[in-house]
């Protein structure tokens, strides 16, 4: 059993098992973890096809960022309970889905079979002396330069859109501290106590002033206000 065959079989099994896991698992968290399996399998196949840079990007961007984002949303919203896969809300949906999926499969198989591998010949592979990242960079910044620049606009639009969507409707249900008004007196008392503990000398001064003005009660109010 050659190394390439072994790698292909293992990675393809991981891909297919992960894909079935995504579709068939009841819990969204399990689906996300199955998706990681598929993505890693694809990354291994990229290495087998000498696209090393893309394999690294696949692991970093997909497994590292996108799946984590999925898990983050699942955990944030607390929707990690199991779906009931037994109910079929639309009558005949599954049967129709099976037919559509088989149709896509048949169409793609027919397309692959119709090419006949002689048309493109056996795999020659790239020149091993030039690293794939060099070739990719040259291609991106010459042939695909315009598309590359458009990509930056797309990313800016995506970020602005995400911020806008996430911020919408946050104002009216903002709650700082329920019952704050009811406990206003108690809070003021506590604040005064804390102030006394922090700077007791100021309060001694205040008490001395108060003792001075003991005789004429009319000045009391103004004294208090001053301190």
């Amino acid at each position, binding site marked *: 059993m050659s190394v390439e065959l072994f790698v292909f079989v293992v990675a393809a099994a991981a891909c297919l098992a992960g894909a079935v896991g995504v*579709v068939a698992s009841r819990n*969204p968290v399990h689906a996300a973890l199955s998706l990681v399996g*598929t993505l890693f399998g694809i990354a291994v196949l990229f290495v087998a096809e000498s696209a090393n840079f*893309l394999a690294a*990007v696949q692991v970093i961007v997909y497994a590292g960022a996108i799946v984590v984002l999925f898990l983050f949303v699942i955990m944030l919203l607390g929707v990690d309970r199991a779906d009931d896969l037994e109910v079929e809300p639309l009558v005949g949906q599954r049967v129709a889905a099976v037919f559509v999926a088989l149709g*896509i499969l048949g169409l793609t198989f027919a397309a692959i079979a119709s090419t006949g591998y002689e048309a*493109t010949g056996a795999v020659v592979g790239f020149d091993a002396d030039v690293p794939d990242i060099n070739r990719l960079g040259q291609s991106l910044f010459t042939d695909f330069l315009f598309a590359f620049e458009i990509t930056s606009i797309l990313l800016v639009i995506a970020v602005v859109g*995400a911020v806008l969507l996430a911020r919408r409707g946050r104002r009216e249900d903002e709650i700082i501290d329920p019952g704050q008004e009811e406990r206003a007196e108690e809070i003021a008392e506590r604040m005064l106590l804390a102030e006394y503990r922090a700077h007791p000398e100021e309060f001694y001064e205040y008490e001395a002033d108060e003792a001075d003005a003991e005789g004429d009660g009319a000045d009391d109010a103004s004294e208090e206000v001053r301190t």
Partner: protein
Amino acid sequence: MIAALDVTPGWYLVLGSLLFSIGAFGLLVRRNPLVMFMCVELMLNAVTLTFVTFSRMLEDTGGQSVVVFVLVVAAAEVVVGLAIIVALLHKRPDATADDVALLEG
């Protein structure tokens, strides 16, 4: 017997086709918007695998460049899509794909 088997590009294409079909099936069957989104990612990955395979068959780096763009578009799509899903599930935690109309207005 098995040692004589060679991994031809056709194998990769068949695998990509299978992954694409499984993803499409899941997209049509599942009703949880998050899982449907994962199925879309599955289909995108099947396509990138096909692109890389053809890139090697034809000795054209253009296929790999397209995969880079697919990655960028997938990242942007996930960011916006998950923001919409968060807004949807915020209104009703058990919302399905049928309840997107909740976001109206």
